[in-house]
């Protein structure tokens, strides 16, 4: 219904020509739109990326969601509630963007609920105190902003537009996180210790959010070539480190990394080695919260079953009534 129907059975001899035209469009900075011809690999990679991104937004509601009822003030409660709602909305924009490529929502949800789909590893770590709400907002949403600002330039129109919409909202998420951490860091010694403890636990996992190092990132080349990504994992990670280290240090907080040092020549903050074994372990399902997250997601889906059934029954009855009257 986007007009152009894509005939996947096209003569393969046309493909080289079409591919050249497609790549020329991307090089010229044009957006690829749903009805346009695109290589199957481009479609596949986008569906993989966008649906994983959508799942991350949805699962990302869980660690913070449990703190809505534990917020220390009504104002903080309203803020956290609004943030978690935003993440749910982000998931919806993204599922929709993936649908424009031919994926269906039921397939995507099914892959998530059966544990076959991936989502951001970071949400397989537990939130243990109120300070974690601040560190998640600051570091996790801060990392997401860097990634999503890049993706707002992605060559696929619907993904790019979803990102622009999302980025505007993410800035609120990061700021409210900073606000929580600043309040704790200049508060009582106990409050400052809470902030320090949260930083200690979340720092390394957030560095892993940008994905494996470039030497070990199988999909990067094709994603960059087709304008889906414009920066590598390591480039984004370095930008993140350079941004976060001085800001958090200015609060008197310390990083859980004895090797962390400033390299004046490159202007970069250099961290000690990242434990990639841990990253792969968590991705393969052996993180501290993988089972809980999936279980909570499944329970939410199953608990909503009767609502979906009731709505469908009402819609059907209503349709019959209006057909008769």
């Amino acid at each position: 219904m986007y007009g152009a129907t894509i005939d996947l059975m096209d003569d393969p001899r046309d493909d080289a020509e079409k591919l050249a035209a497609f790549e020329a469009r991307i090089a010229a900075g044009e957006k690829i739109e749903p009805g346009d011809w695109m290589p199957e690999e481009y479609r596949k990679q986008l569906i993989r990326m966008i649906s994983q991104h959508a799942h991350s937004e949805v699962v990302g509601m869980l660690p913070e969601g449990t703190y809505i009822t534990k917020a220390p003030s009504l104002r903080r409660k309203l803020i956290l509630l609004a943030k978690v709602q935003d993440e749910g909305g982000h998931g919806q924009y993204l599922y929709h963007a993936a649908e424009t490529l031919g994926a269906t929502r039921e397939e995507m949800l099914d892959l998530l609920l059966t544990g076959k789909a991936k989502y951001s590893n970071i949400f397989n770590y537990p939130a243990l105190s109120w300070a974690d709400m601040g560190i998640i907002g600051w570091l996790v949403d801060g990392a997401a902003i860097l990634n999503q600002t890049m993706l707002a330039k992605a060559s696929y129109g619907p993904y790019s537009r979803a990102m622009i919409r999302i980025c505007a909202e993410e800035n609120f998420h990061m700021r409210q996180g900073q606000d929580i951490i600043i309040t704790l860091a200049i508060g009582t010694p106990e409050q400052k210790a809470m902030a320090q403890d949260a930083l200690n636990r979340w720092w390394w996992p957030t560095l892993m959010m940008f994905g494996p190092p470039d030497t070990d990132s199988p999909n990067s080349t094709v994603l960059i070539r087709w304008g889906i990504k414009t920066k590598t994992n390591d480039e984004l990670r370095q930008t993140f480190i350079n941004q976060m280290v001085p800001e958090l240090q200015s609060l008197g907080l310390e990083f859980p990394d004895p090797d962390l040092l400033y390299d004046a020549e490159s202007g970069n903050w250099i961290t000690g080695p990242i434990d990639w074994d841990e990253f792969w372990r968590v991705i393969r399902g052996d993180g501290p919260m993988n089972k809980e997250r999936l279980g909570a997601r499944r329970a939410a889906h199953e608990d909503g079953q009767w609502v979906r059934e009731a709505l469908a029954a009402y819609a059907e009855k209503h349709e019959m009534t209006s057909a008769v009257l």
Partner: protein
Amino acid sequence: MPDTQWPEYVVFQQDKPERVHHYAGGVHAPDAEVALLNARDVFVRRPECISLWVVRRDLIFGATSEEISLDPNWFTQFEVPEGRIEKYAVFQKHGPRGVHEYTGTVEGRSSRDALRAALTVYANQDVTVWWVTPEEAIRRSTSDDIAALFAIAETKFYRDEGQYRTQEALRKIKAMRDKEQSSHGE
């Protein structure tokens, strides 16, 4: 077992009275009523909307300008059905980067018939994709909905990043700490 997927509704949103409705995205819902509520939750968490329209995706008929221009028979070679004349809403997407915007209405006996009329009435060089849908298929929020659906977002200032002066606070704290440290050093 996956759930059965509900039909998809395309969502159009109007930001200000002087602006036309533009494409916002899609939601799934069992009927138009619920689609409107879902659209509100997904697209209007911030005060930038005064009206929403939802329409079932399968009731939108579309064609790209390229398709139309590549087919010289597009205008002539189809049968106009005998059906009754209906009003259709027309949406145009401009240029390679825009999203669909509401353009106006035409009359037709079928979607294709309506699109043919739209091509004449709303001829415009930079249109890349056309959509038409029967006016009857559009479920619109009403002025009564404004208070319940949209106005409540207006007082949620805490959703605005500008409410958090964190960068300023960080600078101040850093300056204070630097000063403290240098006075300790003396």
